[in-house]
Structure formats: structure tokens, C-alpha cells
């Protein structure tokens, strides 16, 4: 069975289709790359507002009325402002932690700072 595509994945694929890196895309459209990255990784739900979605679709050069346009809106509607359950279940903080993590001077990072990093990565 074909796995259902998520809004974030579709967003990212559309951005890549117009050959824009995340940074280029966000600079060009005055967007926050941290938030767009979360949206693409499905760690933020799609926006609820039709206006916002249309704005994003425009930035992604998705033509109004095209198949892509309907897919974009259908996927956003399917997620109804929630982070999909399977993403929540799959998202393991251990997978996102670094394995080579020392300061620029090669020193070990204190336990306190490692805990701080975990906290940051849970929200990244």
C-alpha cells in the first residue's frame, strides 16, 4: 500500500521542485527558516488559515486550480491543525542527538549543557 504523504513532505518536495534551498526560499519570501523547517518535517501542523496556505502555495509556485494546488490544500485539511500521530510516535529524541559533539576547541561538553541541548532539540 502506498504510504500517505504528509503536508510537510509535500511542502518540501514542492520547494525542491522549484530548486530553492530552505535558506534561499526563506530569504526570498521573508519567512523564518526554523519554522518552515519544522513545518517540512511535520513537527508543526499546517496553518489553518486559507489565506496563509494560499500565500505559501504562491511562494512554492503551485498554480491555482492545478492538481498540485488541490493536493496542497487537501493534505493541509487532512491534518486539521494537528501533528500527525505517526510522526509523534516515530519522533525519537535519541535519533536527533549528535554523536560527535565537542566544543570548537575539542573539549567535552558538560552534563548540564548536554541536558540543555536535549531541551533545545526537542523544540527544534
Amino acid at each position, binding site marked *: 500500500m502506498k504510504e500517505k504523504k504528509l503536508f510537510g513532505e509535500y511542502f518540501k518536495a514542492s520547494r*525542491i521542485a522549484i530548486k530553492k534551498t530552505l535558506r534561499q526560499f526563506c530569504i526570498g519570501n521573508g519567512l523564518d527558516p526554523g519554522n518552515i523547517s519544522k513545518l517540512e518535517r511535520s513537527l508543526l501542523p499546517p496553518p489553518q488559515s486559507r489565506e496563509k496556505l494560499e500565500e505559501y502555495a504562491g511562494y512554492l509556485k503551485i498554480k491555482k486550480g492545478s492538481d498540485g494546488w488541490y493536493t496542497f490544500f487537501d493534505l493541509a485539511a487532512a491534518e486539521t491543525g494537528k501533528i500527525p500521530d505517526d510522526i509523534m510516535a516515530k519522533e525519537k529524541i535519541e535519533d536527533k542527538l549528535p*554523536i560527535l559533539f565537542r566544543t570548537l576547541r575539542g573539549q567535552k561538553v558538560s552534563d548540564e549543557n548536554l541536558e540543555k541541548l536535549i531541551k533545545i532539540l526537542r523544540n527544534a
Partner: protein
Amino acid sequence: MSNENNIKAPVFSYDEICNHADHFLKQYHPCREIPIPIEEIAEFQIGLNIVPIPGLLRAFDVDGFTSSDLSNIYVDEFIYSDRPGRYRFTLAHEVGHIFLHKEIYSKANFRNIKEWKDFINSISEKDHGWLEYQAYSFGGLVLVPREHLIRLTKFYVNRVQEEDISLRENWDFAWDLIAARLAKDFEVSSDVIEKRLNKDKVMETYR
């Protein structure tokens, strides 16, 4: 999982790292045009997510790192948005870890935070130094392909001489100037260029 992971850094000579970088360019950027589009390669071809993190450098003295599942490269947000040369090098360096140190990442099967801490602390300072050296060299070699370095150095040496600056009499000044111009062409810092000019013995040919 204990501190006995037997994580050993692989041993690569500089020539071997050159070969890895060359192979990488053949695979992902065969035309070898500069500046090397490392961001596009990382995102479009390798499929990595690049995630900016505010305050990473300030809080941890770290420019960037790769997640243990090799899906994300996290980069300090300031470097990401305001330091393009350093950002590009951070990406190339992290891609170096992904390509050269895959085996180490594959051993990172920690099930909880304690195991993760044990794992990262089990890597000795010496091994960590090796791993960093290899990724650093790889980053420089990918962003500054040798044939372009030699060709453009020759071009700028001629330019300096045309400006009546004697290379021998103004050795340090002239090379600072040349490194700055090369850095612009390759979109990296002068530091990266200076290290390559020394390591690849390019400067020596003009003594």
C-alpha cells in the same frame, strides 16, 4: 550500553581523504564548477534537512552537528544567516562526517539519554581529534578542488606580480592578498584557503 563501545576513528591519510573528496565531487557535482553548491548537494541530492538553531555557537561553542540518524544537519542560526562562508564550510565538514564516519554513526543505537551520554563520552579525545581532522580536511578538499586552487593561485600570483609587488620581498603580504581573493572565488574563509595552500604545498612552488 557502557563506555566500552570500542569506537575507534578510522585512519585515513591526507591522500585517502583527497580520494574520498574527489569521489564525492564525481558523484554529486561532476562538472566541478566553483563555488561548489554544497547546500544544494546536501539538501537536493543527499536529502538532508538543514535545521538552524538559535544560540548554538554561543551556548555550546559549536558551529553545527549531524543527528545520529543522519537525517539532519543542525547549524547555528547566526552562522546560517549571516556567515555564508563559514556556513558552507560547516555543511561540507558535516557531510565529511557522514561520508567518512558512517560506520561510527551506525553503532549509535542508544535507547535512552543515558546510553547516548555514555556513547559520546566513550569517544576518546584522540579519536575525536582524528575524526574532526578528517572531516575538516574533507570539507576543505570538497569546497576547494585542487585543480582550481592551482589554476587560480597561478592567476593571482601573476596579478600580484603585474602590480609590481615582489612575491619574495613581500611574501606574507602577497599571500594574504592572494588568499583573500581565492577565498572570494571559492566562497570560503581565508583560513580554509591558507590551510590548503600550505597542506597541498602550493605556496612552496613559488619560493
